[in-house]
């Protein structure tokens, strides 16, 4: 029984945090590659772009299930408020992901309809990304709730801010995707990825900057978190480090570095994630519920923690290893036919 008296909320916060971040990162870059795919010229370039994510994209998507189930298991009340509040973005995201996954498979088998499935893959990726950005934006803004249920309407989540974050995420994932492509391809195609990467970087950089101004202006709680003395003393490194990473990203995209653009993009996402976390902690439903209020029972958290702490590291190690063996440039001659 002693296990039941432990507070598992921090552990589950970390587990869910990792799962969601890994999803954003991993599916983020392959959704980004999917978006950029729509701009690739010529069949060979398109095939190379596709092949760069062929081995890993659907493994990446599995983190979405773990993220959703982690939220349900760790913080059921948050799950029961957030998911209904973003009913349509979630619907659109799921349909786009299903459609995109199907397009990925069929693109190679249905030669007559190659163009159709190519488009389906690109648009599916973009629509799923936009929907996730809307989820993010409306999450930051918070939802109408009575503390137990979502009490607003299913279209409330579409606000100027959430549309803005939706568009911003297109460029964010585009930047991740460009970073991945720079790592995986060579020559002209790599130059092309650098050019698109720069565009995405400028747009997402401006968007992150705008959000960083917008949210404290719109939300006194977030403003207090960042600007009430002595918080700026502790939190100042966040914008400073972010700016340094942004500078590094620009240099990397402009130069010949192959790993740095992707690495810097990951760090930029990590810093943004951290920034959102700092703004909202300890709320899991902004303005409504803390992590502790939304948590499942200690018995539930303990029972699931046992298996998760055993299985999750193995999954992480294996995922890491599979990326390791797939390192190196993707070639045109091997691949789908």
């Amino acid at each position, binding site marked *: 029984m002693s296990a039941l008296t432990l507070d598992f909320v921090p552990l589950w916060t970390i587990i869910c945090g990792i799962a969601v971040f890994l999803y954003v990162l991993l599916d983020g870059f392959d959704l980004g590659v999917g978006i950029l795919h729509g701009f690739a010229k010529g069949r060979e370039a398109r095939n190379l772009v596709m092949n760069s994510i062929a081995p890993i994209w659907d493994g990446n998507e599995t983190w979405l299930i773990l993220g959703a189930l982690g939220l349900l298991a760790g913080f059921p009340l948050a799950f029961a408020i957030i998911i209904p509040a973003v009913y349509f973005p979630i*619907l659109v995201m*799921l349909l786009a992901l299903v459609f995109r996954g199907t397009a990925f498979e069929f693109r190679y088998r249905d030669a007559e309809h190659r163009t159709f499935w190519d488009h389906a893959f690109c648009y599916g990726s973009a629509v799923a990304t936009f929907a996730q950005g809307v989820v993010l934006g409306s999450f930051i803004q918070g939802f109408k709730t009575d503390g137990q*249920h979502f009490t607003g309407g*299913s279209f409330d989540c579409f606000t100027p801010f959430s549309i803005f974050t939706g568009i911003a995420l297109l460029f964010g994932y585009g930047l991740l995707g460009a970073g991945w492509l720079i790592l995986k391809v060579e020559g002209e195609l790599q130059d092309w990825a650098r050019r698109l990467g720069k565009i995405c970087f400028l747009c997402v950089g401006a968007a992150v900057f705008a959000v960083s101004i917008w949210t404290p202006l719109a939300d006194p709680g977030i403003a207090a978190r960042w600007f009430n003395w002595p918080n700026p003393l502790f939190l100042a490194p966040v914008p400073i480090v972010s700016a340094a990473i942004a500078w590094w990203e620009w240099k990397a995209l402009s130069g010949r570095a192959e790993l740095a653009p992707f690495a810097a993009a990951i760090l930029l996402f990590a810093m943004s994630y951290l920034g959102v976390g700092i703004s909202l902690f300890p709320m899991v439903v902004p303005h409504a519920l803390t992590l502790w209020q939304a948590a499942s029972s200690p018995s539930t958290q303990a029972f699931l923690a046992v298996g998760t702490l055993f299985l999750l590291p193995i999954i992480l190690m294996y995922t890491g290893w*599979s990326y390791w063996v*797939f390192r190196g440039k993707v070639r045109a001659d091997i691949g789908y036919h």
Partner: protein
Amino acid sequence: MMTLDPVLLSRLQFFWVIAWHILLPAFTVGLASFIAVLEGLHFVTRREVYLRLSGFWTRIFAISFGMGVVSGIVMPFQLGTNWSRFSAATADVTSPLLAYEGLMAFFLEAAFLGVLLFGRKLVPAWAHLIAAVMVGVGTLFSSFWILSTNSWMQTPAGYRLENGRFEPVNWIDIIFNPSFPYRLFHTVTGFYVTTAFVVVGVAAYYLRRGRFIEEARTMFSMTLWLLTVLVPLQIFLGDAHGLNTREYQPAKLAAIEARWETGSRVPLTLFAIPDQEAQTNHYAIEVPVLGSLILTHDPNGTVRGLKEFPKEDLPPVIIPFFSFRVMVGLGFIMLAVVALSWLLRAQHRLFAARWYLALCQHVAPIGFLAVIAGWITTEVGRQPWTVYGLLRTSDSVTPSLTGTDVLISLLGYILVYLIMYPTGVLMMARIVARGPASAADGAEPIESGRPQLPVRALPRTSDKEASA
């Protein structure tokens, strides 16, 4: 008014997405075990035919498993988007079971599926066999957790109610709730039978055309032997499951039998049009006493009738009544197909009787129909509850949803699934048309819906890079 009821539309939506999803595990759970058996037979006997068959079915497995994952992503979100009150009320009990399913499925996918799909030439034969077995075991683990969750909703146990939420008291009681063992064995056997009839159907298709004779005869014969065991076993398990339902969900059993009055020596109603309003049956065709005999194993046994329960606690009788009869009817058709195989074997005409091969080819999808019918029986029979007797379906739905919201989402799911599923089936049909011989030559890629695992990156398999 009815058409824009968010509860009804949410139920239709759940039916739509899970009915399509369930077809894939119904196929892949059995297929994974079949592949493991083929690999085992090849390991022991070294006969090439088993290898060709294993390669052939692994290609089909990869596509159906991939479709299963894609359609599976939709499922946990349904609990949030449309059934948020169910989620909030039951998550403390059910969510770990669902999460364990996710973790284990992910683990299995990461660790063993890649070796099975792409590792034949890269790992020792025994390691490949272990990978095949582990994939099979993994699909069974998935079934275990999902069916445990479903069974808990049917026969909740090991919980206490606190502020309208279910709190866990005893995890063993929760996982091994009263209907779980019966549901697990009945469902998994149903999945095996489903796969077996597909295998028999494909084999019959080849035999009728005189193609891939050795492979076709091998799988035709071995699978019919398997069905010889499984179909009678399934009828026995179904009967045991029925006794369990009589004990724990008497209103469901009464609905399945359209039995309105409690009584002993009750007849078996073969056909009727149940009338929910008038609480009676029209045009009933009945066999005296047989109802008590089947349902209680005693001609004088008492069967509780629907009138014993409040009207608002009754499921829509007509649906489980007919879906159950469809399931049982299909079960007896299966039994007939199996029995005919014994006769033909005795006459040494198993591969020669053309009418029988045609029959086998055309009953290939029979298991899917039976699974769907059985699933409708048990889920609609559970109504009007999501947690039986404790939480009403109408109290489970997301309160913020309007009928229009759900109508839009339902139409979206219908559209996308109607594109995805036929195309997927077409792809599998093409593999069948190409046949098992091409699977063995190694030049063709495994057509996978799964992540390509590390082994594929190695030079030996570069020519197989193609799939995913």
